[in-house]
């Protein structure tokens, strides 16, 4: 088990190097230069060339890359042109909001999806299963942003149950009121996000249970005289969880990256909204940093999935 994890972490090192080179080269390929917008428009082009030269922008790309990596390791991802602040500080401010929203969404997702998937799988072909499948098809086929806009319109503007923008009310002060206000801002986007995420997990689990239920080892267990309840517990669930485990890491990183849809529609100041704004304002340093971070999160996601899988399935463990 530990060997598997160690091996997987070691594999991540070359992956990270390749990722950083790609992100760096893509940033280099972006049009424009960092100074045009920052200097006096009356200054000549030679001035810009001079700035480029002293800042090392005419050095060979691998030297520039090396400088960038060294800065990266010092926690320096450059300064945002838009906010005139270090990129790391901007991301740190947003990361917390996204993290909490992601956590709540994830908990809600699994709290809804696991029982639904198990329930549908157990009653395969019956009314219960049909109802669950109608739910999953409905949530899967309606576009996510439609659900979000409708949800925000009905429960936010119409019923006025939840705030429709921001992450915390400016009037809240003190630990508990701030906490409650944060929760209040998160519930609607989290529930709607979970609603969307449940459909695929429910389907995965449902088909996992059905596959496991009809497998030969279940018949072996029955022939041992094991009651069906115990067969579900000891044989069917664990096997049905394999596809979920393989999927879990990715879904976690997807949420951590911050959903652009959710954050845009609810004006929730997280990483997704930051990314969208950075693209709108051509804020290259922020874009580069976020792309690098998303890439890193994706690698972490596959790592998490592999660890979860190897915890359940002995076949993927390394001897």
């Amino acid at each position, binding site marked *: 088990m530990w060997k598997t994890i160690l091996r997987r972490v070691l594999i991540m090192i070359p992956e990270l190097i390749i990722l950083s080179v790609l992100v760096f080269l893509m940033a280099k390929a972006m049009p424009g230069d960092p100074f045009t917008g920052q200097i006096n428009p009356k200054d000549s082009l030679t001035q810009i060339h001079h700035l480029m030269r002293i800042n090392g922008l005419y050095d060979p790309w691998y030297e520039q890359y090396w400088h960038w990596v060294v800065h990266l390791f010092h926690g320096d991802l450059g300064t945002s042109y838009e906010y005139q602040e270090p990129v790391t500080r901007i991301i740190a401010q947003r990361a917390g909001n996204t993290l909490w929203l992601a956590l709540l969404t994830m908990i809600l997702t699994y709290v809804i999806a696991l029982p639904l998937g198990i329930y549908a799988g157990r009653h395969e072909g019956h009314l219960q299963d049909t109802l669950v499948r109608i739910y999953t098809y409905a949530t899967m086929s309606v576009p996510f942003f439609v659900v979000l806009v409708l949800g925000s319109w009905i429960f936010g503007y119409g019923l006025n149950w939840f705030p429709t923008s921001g992450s915390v009310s400016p009037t809240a002060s003190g630990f508990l009121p701030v906490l409650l206000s944060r929760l209040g801002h998160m519930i609607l986007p989290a529930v709607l996000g979970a609603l969307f995420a449940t459909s695929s997990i429910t389907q995965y689990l449902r088909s996992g249970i059905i596959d496991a239920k009809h497998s030969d*080892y279940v018949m072996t267990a*029955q022939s*041992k*005289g094991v009651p069906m309840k115990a067969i579900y517990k000891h044989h069917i669930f664990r096997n049905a969880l394999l596809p979920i485990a393989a999927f879990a890491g990715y879904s976690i990183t997807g949420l951590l990256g911050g959903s652009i849809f959710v954050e845009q529609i609810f004006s929730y100041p997280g990483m997704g909204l930051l990314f969208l704004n950075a693209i709108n304002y051509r804020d290259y340093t922020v874009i580069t940093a976020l792309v690098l971070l998303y890439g890193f999160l994706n690698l972490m996601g596959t790592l998490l999935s592999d660890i979860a899988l190897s915890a359940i399935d002995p076949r993927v463990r390394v001897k």
Partner: protein
Amino acid sequence: MAKQFLDIKDVNTSFEMDGKYYNAISDINLHVNSNEFLAVVGESGCGKSTLAKTIMGLHDPAYTKISGQVDFEGHDLLKMSEKQLNHYRGSKMGMIFQDPLSSLNPLKKVKDQISESLDYHTKLNSKQKNDRVIKLLGEVGIDDPKLIANEFPYQLSGGMRQRVLIAIAIACEPDLIIADEPTTALDVTIQAQILDVLRKIRKENHSSIILITHDLGVVADTADRVAVMYAGQIVEVGTVQQIFEHPLHPYTRSLLRSMPELNTTSDDLYVIDGQVPSLKKMPKTGDRFAPRIPWIKASEHEKNPVMHDVGNEHFVRCSCYKHFYFPDQKKVSENNG
């Protein structure tokens, strides 16, 4: 005569397909004596496995209708609740399955899969269970039982897995073991070893064994009695000597004649033309084998063939056996061979 401890009476099992029920096995009457080795033979799709699963109660009740009686030590298994049946399964009867690859849970260690049976039917503590698992693995011919007990199924070869499945089936020393084509997925040398293990268990545990197979060679040197099945029915039952030396039913005779011998070439291998009718096309009346022996006149088959006692517990279905002959020199064209 030995005690008949399993007595199957008028059993019919039908499966639901597209809203209708189709008979997979019909009018099964068969008994097993204690400490007897009974072989059930027949082509694929003739209902052998359906019979085995019917005895063990492994069919999904939502899609299956079963009628008749399966008396096991005086109790009708078909009338038992799931809970009562679980009391019998594993402890008094065990089953060995056909595919050793898929019949073991890939996520559980061998020892846990064997001791699961002990969990439900014995009061052994965990150390005793562990010892028992090691002993069982030794009994089924595994050389390093302590090592294998801690392995996962994927780490074992097909033959080893089949031995593990046998160890599971015999964990509580059941009186009846049903082996459903236990050697089909294995290569020939392993087949012989697995059969040796079954023979040994029968001798040492005094169990009865129902061996389901399509391999007549296996039957000849293992079984005491043979039941031949065709299209969901038993067509002939008798001792090994009766079946192999004086086969009566046209199907049994055709089967035996289609067994290749060492000097048989594909040209003179006897082939039974046609195929087993599918469940949906099963004829309601008449001899189900008649379409495959068209040279026998229809009048020589019974309208509703029944089993005839031809003496010494040798039974055969339909009186057409009295008139059966092989069309002489019937050869097979090479593209059929």
